[in-house]
């Protein structure tokens, strides 16, 4: 009994100290965003540099939808990133879809690498619908995807397939193209 009485306070103290330490350690970790966080932020920011023309298939609605097709790598991160944000006057919403029919309202569509085998029809549907397709699967841009995330120098960069965007009726700001690592379809690239 006596032993517990002596050791208990110091033990409790030790736990408190450890948790504080761990918490600060965890907080110190925060300035380095994870890949999903960066990609989520990019998905949201792409919307600021893209103009959807009237001829694009996306019906003009009150919301700006960002959709994720296939296995969702973001989890709650995407929702957290876009919470309360707007593009222009449109509020941003997110949606996880599993088939192409649901993609008609999407402005931005992230195609997960799980859909690699079904890429072609997905891209075709997106093109008709005037949706900006983004993915991190390899050769996405070469295969007709519009923006492909590429890790470069410890950072997430991206490649752009310009003709694909033009076919879908999308206009990408030169500011966006400026920071792209590669722009396919532009003379000189």
């Amino acid at each position: 009994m006596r032993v517990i009485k002596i050791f208990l306070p110091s033990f409790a103290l030790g736990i408190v100290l450890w948790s504080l330490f761990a918490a600060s350690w965890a907080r110190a970790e925060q300035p380095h965003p994870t890949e999903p966080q960066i990609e989520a932020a990019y998905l949201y920011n792409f919307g600021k540099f893209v103009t959807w023309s009237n001829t694009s298939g996306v019906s003009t609605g009150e919301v700006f939808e960002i959709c994720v097709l296939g296995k969702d790598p973001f989890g709650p991160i995407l929702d957290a990133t876009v919470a309360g944000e707007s593009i222009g006057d449109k509020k941003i919403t997110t949606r996880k879809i599993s088939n192409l029919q649901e993609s008609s309202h999407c402005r931005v569509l992230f195609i997960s690498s799980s859909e690699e085998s079904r890429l072609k029809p997905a891209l075709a549907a997106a093109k008709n619908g005037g949706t900006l397709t983004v993915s991190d699967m390899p050769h996405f841009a070469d295969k007709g995807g519009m923006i492909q995330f590429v890790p470069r120098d410890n950072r997430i960069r991206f490649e752009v397939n310009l003709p694909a965007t033009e076919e879908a009726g999308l206009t990408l700001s030169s500011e966006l193209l400026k920071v792209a690592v590669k722009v396919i379809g532009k003379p000189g690239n």
Partner: protein
Amino acid sequence: MNMLVSGTALLLACAAFFAYDQFTFRQGLVRTLSAQAQIIGSNSVSAITFNDPQSAINTLSALKSSPNIESAGIFTASGELFAQYLRDGGNEALTIQLLPEGKAEAYRFGSMHLVLVHSIVFQGKPVGTVHLRASLQELDQRLRRYTSIAAVVLVLSLFAALLVSAAFRRSVAEPIVQLVDVARVVSQDNNYSVRAAPTVVRDEVSLLVDAFNNMLDQIQRRDDALQKAHDELEERVEERTRDLVSSNRELEAFSYSVSHDLRGPLDTMNGFSYLLLKNYSNQLDANGKESLQGIRTAVRRMSELIDDLLNLSRVTTSIMHREEIDLASYSRSIMEELCHRGPERHVEFVAPARADAYADPRLMRIVIENLLQNSWKYTSHHQHARIEFGSKEQEGGIVYFVKDDGSGFDPRSADRLFQPFLRLHSAAEFPGNGIGLATVRRIVQRHGGTVWAEGMVEQGATFYFTLESVRSEVPSRAS
């Protein structure tokens, strides 16, 4: 003195211009820098958003074209340095300057730098900040350049002003000052022969100088004419004086010889009549003695008359010497004499302690003598007589008087009083030959004064006289 004033004015004007120029230049600098910051900011949005520092560095490198921008930096919204630009190379990391709350831009002027911070906003959201640091060297150089320009301009314009002022002084101020000097010489020294030197340039000032000299010519001519007239007058006066002097001397000689010649027979008559009375009185009866007495009396009277006439002539012609004299003392001594000669008379005499006058003592003595003798004579019928001598101040001068309470005279005959020989009383009443008052009048006239009398029958008479209405500085004329 003028230089100081104009120099100060110029300096103040220059300083004002400088200050304004500095101010506007600074404002211009800020505006340029702000524009640059905005351009850089909007071009860096995507770089920051998609974490592409190289793109931002490329954007910043365009600042090479602005030689005054020393360094620039782009910071993320969380305050980290994203990209930087240093004009002179080097690796020093820039530090963030915080923007005040709610402001999109802030700038600060240091001693040699201008630092401007501009917030980058993209679609309503702050994305980061742009920092620009510009050197104020150009400003400094500008200031230096202006200062040297101003100094040169100041010196040149002061010099020009000096030249203009000297020219002005030479052509306008100096001739006028000279005119003033000449005018002063003319008034102070009464020298009308000076003239102002004519100016070289024929302008309005030279007209003034010419007119001035003409005026002086006129004045000099007038002055000469005046002097000539004065001299002529002097000459004429001297001539007349000489004539007068000579005729006076002739008269004097004549009177003297006449009296002398007249005296002769009179003395003879006097002597013989005396002898007759003395040696042949026992052979003469009363009639005879009476006749002889009559002759003696007549002779005596004639002698007196001759003396008086001589006196009168002398009074007229003699030289007058004025002195400060006291008439009251004369009156007292004359009265004493009269009392001594006539001790049986009871006469009360009143006179002031002093009666000053500036006149010829000998002639004035005659005046007082004649007047007092008259009073003495014409009060002889009264038991008791009062004779007064005095003076009173009147405007214009002093009036002297001799007053008695004797037999007086009829005022209607006052004008005959002073004429010689005209007597208002017969010789039986009062002895006398009528010369006395004429003599008094002559003497008083010679002194520049007047004599007049007031009286009533049996109520006394007062004789007034003045001597020269104003005591002047003109010395008595020698005649």
